[in-house]
Each structure stands twice: as structure tokens, then as C-alpha cells.
């Protein structure tokens, strides 16, 4: 049934369009404009300073740290999250019982907020009451301060990576269930079994799924905020800062919100560049069964 009544079209679309323009599209343009201004404390005076914020951005050592940390996060996401998810999916695919149980348990952390997970892990790393020091005590070793300048970024990575392994696990599992059974049957006839089945058949046939997982892992890494904000707030001494936490600190702690907007633009550009590059890299002919 196709309707044409214009009054309904306007009436039914109006609230959505109004909301999208007010809270997404108009502010997006504003973000770009702010990135060229100097603007302290959200005061009424914004000074247009051209590209100065962008020059500062390139020379800002903390942006350097944040970029390095984001890169570590992306590598971790690709190899440990997506890789771990693939490994768990291959293992689960080969067992006969308990498949549903593992899927339920592996996926559960994704449902929980980064805030709760962050707080949980800051309790785990805590000096006096933490889980890690409790284990250390039980083993008879001496307690440690876990979150130091050198270790902080890796320790905040643990919850982030841990949380999403189950996500890639489910995606790979779904991909595997779409591979037709007869491919495996003919492989068995050729004497290919066990892990060689995974290496020579499953993984090559999952290439498209692996490609989309890589894109999701990188895009997801750029959006991380909660866990780092809760566990370290980017510290100690900015050592675990990400672009997102640095942007938040710059914008909402009475500093230059124009510069914070520049960081926002940099994050978006980074996201687009990485996504385009990844798509170029992995997009060849699609796998068909």
C-alpha cells in the first residue's frame, strides 16, 4: 500500500527531523566552527583564531600520548579482542555440549556499562581492598601499587578488551554457522580434520566477517571513554589519556573549549581515515559459498 497524503508526511516526520537538526546536525556544524576559536569557560566571548588550535594540537605532547594510547588500544582490540573472539568461537564450534552456556556467559560483560566495569576494576586494582592484592597476599607475596605511570594504560586496557571479546565471539560464531556443512564433509573425505579444518577452511571462509570485525574494533576503540574516565581519569600524569578523556578534561574543566572541539574534529577525521583505509585494504571479491 502506498500513501501520498502530504499532511501526514510532514506531521509524522517533523518531530524526528526537528530533533536530529537540533541535537546532531546543527551542533556538528557548531563543533567545526568552535574548533577555530579560543573560548574559555563557555563565556560569551569566542575569539576566532584560525588554525591556531590545530597548530597547538600537532605540538601538544599529551595529544601525542593520547594518540599512542589509542593506537595501543586499536592493536589490542584487533589482536586480543577480535583474535580472542575468533579463537573462542573456533573452540566452541568444536564442542558438543555447553555451547549455549558459553555464549551466554561470554556475552554478558557487554551488557554491563563501562561505568560499572570501570568501578569494578578500580576495586580490583585498589591497594588495600583490591582483588589483585588479595591474591598476592594469599600467595604470601608483598602488595603492590598497580596503577603507575608505566602500567596505567595497560591496566585500563584489560577491562576494555575483556568486555568485548564476547562480542566478536558471537559475530564469528554466527559467521561459522553460515558455512555449509558439505564443505566440511568433503574436507573430512580428503583427510582434513581437527585444527587444520579451522586453518584451511573456516578462517579463509570467514574473511568477510574478519574484515568487518576489524572495522568495528577500530571504530569502537575511538569511542572508549567510560572505563578510562572511571579507573584513571587519564592519569597518573596523563599517562593513560585517550583523545576522548583529554577532550572531556579540556572542555569541561574550565579550559579552552575551542581547543577541545579541535580534538573532537581530530577524532572524527581519525575515525574516517582509519575506516576508509581498512575498507580499501580488505575489500576484495566477496566470499560466496
Amino acid at each position: 500500500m502506498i500513501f501520498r497524503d502530504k499532511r501526514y508526511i510532514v506531521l509524522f516526520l517533523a518531530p524526528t527531523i526537528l530533533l536530529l537538526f537540533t541535537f546532531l546536525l546543527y551542533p556538528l556544524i557548531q563543533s567545526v566552527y568552535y574548533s577555530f576559536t579560543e573560548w574559555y569557560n563557555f563565556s560569551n566571548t569566542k575569539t576566532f583564531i584560525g588554525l591556531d588550535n590545530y597548530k597547538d594540537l600537532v605540538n601538544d605532547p599529551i595529544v601525542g600520548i593520547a594518540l599512542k594510547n589509542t593506537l595501543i588500544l586499536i592493536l589490542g582490540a584487533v589482536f586480543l579482542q577480535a583474535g580472542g573472539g575468533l579463537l573462542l568461537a573456533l573452540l566452541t564450534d568444536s564442542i558438543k555440549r555447553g555451547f549455549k552456556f558459553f555464549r551466554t556467559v561470554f556475552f554478558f560483560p557487554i551488557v554491563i556499562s563501562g561505568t560499572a566495569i570501570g568501578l569494578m576494576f578500580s576495586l580490583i586494582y585498589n591497594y588495600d581492598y583490591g582483588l589483585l592484592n588479595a591474591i598476592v597476599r594469599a600467595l604470601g607475596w608483598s602488595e603492590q601499587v598497580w596503577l603507575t605511570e608505566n602500567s596505567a594504560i595497560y591496566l585500563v586496557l584489560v577491562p576494555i578488551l575483556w568486555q568485548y571479546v564476547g562480542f566478536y565471539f558471537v559475530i564469528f560464531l554466527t559467521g561459522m554457522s553460515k558455512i555449509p556443512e558439505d564443505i566440511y564433509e568433503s574436507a573430512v573425505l580428503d583427510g582434513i580434520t581437527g585444527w587444520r579444518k579451522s586453518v584451511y577452511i573456516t578462517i579463509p571462509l570467514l574473511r568477510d566477517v574478519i574484515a568487518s570485525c576489524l572495522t568495528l574494533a577500530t571504530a569502537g576503540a575511538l569511542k572508549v571513554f567510560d572505563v578510562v574516565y572511571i579507573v584513571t581519569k587519564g592519569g597518573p600524569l596523563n599517562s593513560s589519556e585517550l583523545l576522548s578523556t583529554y577532550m572531556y578534561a579540556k572542555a569541561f574543566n574550565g579550559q579552552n573549549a575551542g581547543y577541545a572541539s579541535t580534538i573532537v574534529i581530530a577524532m572524527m577525521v581519525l575515525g574516517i581515515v582509519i575506516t576508509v583505509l581498512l575498507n580499501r585494504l580488505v575489500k576484495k571479491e566477496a566470499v560466496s559459498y
Partner: protein
Amino acid sequence: MVNKMVRPALPQIFVYALLIFWASTTIVPLLWVLLNSFKSSEEILTQSFAWPESFAFSNYLKLNEYGNINIVKGFMNSMLISGSVVFGVALFGGLASFILARFSFRGKKYFTFLFVICMLLPQFAVIIPNFIIIEKIGLNGTYLSVILPQVAGNLSFAIIMMTAFMASLPGELEEAAVMDGASIWKIFYRITLPLCMPIFATVSIMVFLWSYNELLLPLVYLPIRDMQPISVLLSLVSNAYGTDYGAMMAAITISIIPLLVLYMFSQETVIKGLTAGAVKG
């Protein structure tokens, strides 16, 4: 590496051992938090892994005592805010999807394009300007200051999902209703809406999860402690509660309960929805 002999599959016991190891990494920390939420701070320090001496709810009752960092109030705020976000997304998204799925008009493809762009747009891209816009339109200090931006942020994803679903529904019932002289409005809420309940359920669950777990938006848009959702209060707990670790464990537990319930009752929907929604900005 090519071995003529047929290799046996990985020993099943080894496979299970690895899987159980990973399962325990997701279960043990949560169980540790749950069990410790029933212990006093001394008990947490001395017997971190033991079964609690008694299942006392004193830590939970204490959550009321920390002035305006009141987790129980935060929980109610979360329900109010996320419930309203779900309602707003379902209402406006439902109307817009009905137009996209059942109406033909010039420029329709630009709307579809617009929704895809808005879906991919991450929230951090608009957080600073929205902080000002909320003040300009007089929403600051109201629940609407977090509700409306979240509705806007989730609408595009909902519309794309719901339009696809509605377009796949057969049109015969609607044609019959037109023959009977029903108005478009009546067709929408008497015929299309009831048929779309499954997709409304899916979208609502997803939007609730995202909204309930959102930290950055309420942190920035709603600075009034009494109105803040549980996610923001959780971010303050480790400073405000000092060394009252039992209370912190209780706060985490309370914040997880609604998610656990939702996950237990609609696991398939949650898993499918969250993997489909991964592209959302």
C-alpha cells in the same frame, strides 16, 4: 606442516579447559563483587574470597546515607530517564518509519541518507555545542536535557531497523482498511502498530540498554546531583564513599541487576540487537 597421518582433533578436555577458563574470567569478578557486597570492609580485607559470614543487607541500606550520592535515587532517575528515552524513540521513530515504509514522495532517498549519517555520527562530536544548545532552549536543569539528546542519538538507528521491518510487512490488511474508509492515522495505530510489536520490543530493549549505560551525556548535560542517573553516581562513588568498599560493591550490584534481568529474559534479542547495533555512533 603437511602430515600424512590424520591429526586427532584437539583433545576435548583441553578445549573445555580453555573455554571454562574464559568463562571464569567473566563470572569470577562479578561473583566477587556480589559476595563482597554482603561483607563489612574488614571482612573484605581479610577474607576477600570467602563466602560472606552472613547475608546482611547493611551495605545496601547504607546506600541512602551518602547525602546526594544516593544510588537508590540514581536508580529511580535512570529508570525515569531511560524509560522516557525509549518512549520518545518508539513514538517518533514509529511515526517516521511508517512514512518511510508506506509513503511515496519526492526526496525520500535523501531522508534515508540523512538517517544513515545521523546513525554513524558519534555522540562526542556534538557534546560541546549541545551543552550550549540545552541552555539556550531553556532545558538546563531538567530531565529533558538528557532525554531529548538521547532520543535524537538513538532515533536514526531505530528508524532504520523499523522501516526495514515495516516495509517487509504485507500490505493487504492496510488495503482492506482503506477500502473500508479508515483514515491513515487509524491504519497506523490499529493495523501497522500491532503488527510491528516485535521490532518495537527489540528496539526498545536496545535503546534502554544504551541509555541506561550512558555516562558521558548525563555527566555533561545534567549537573544536578539529585537528578543524575545511576551511571553518573557510580562514577563518583569511589571518591565519595572513601574506604567503604562494601557499599561500593553494593552500588555496582544494584546497577547491574536491571541489566541481568533484561539479559535473562531476552537474551537472544539482546545478543542480536547489540551485534546489529555496533555500527551506531
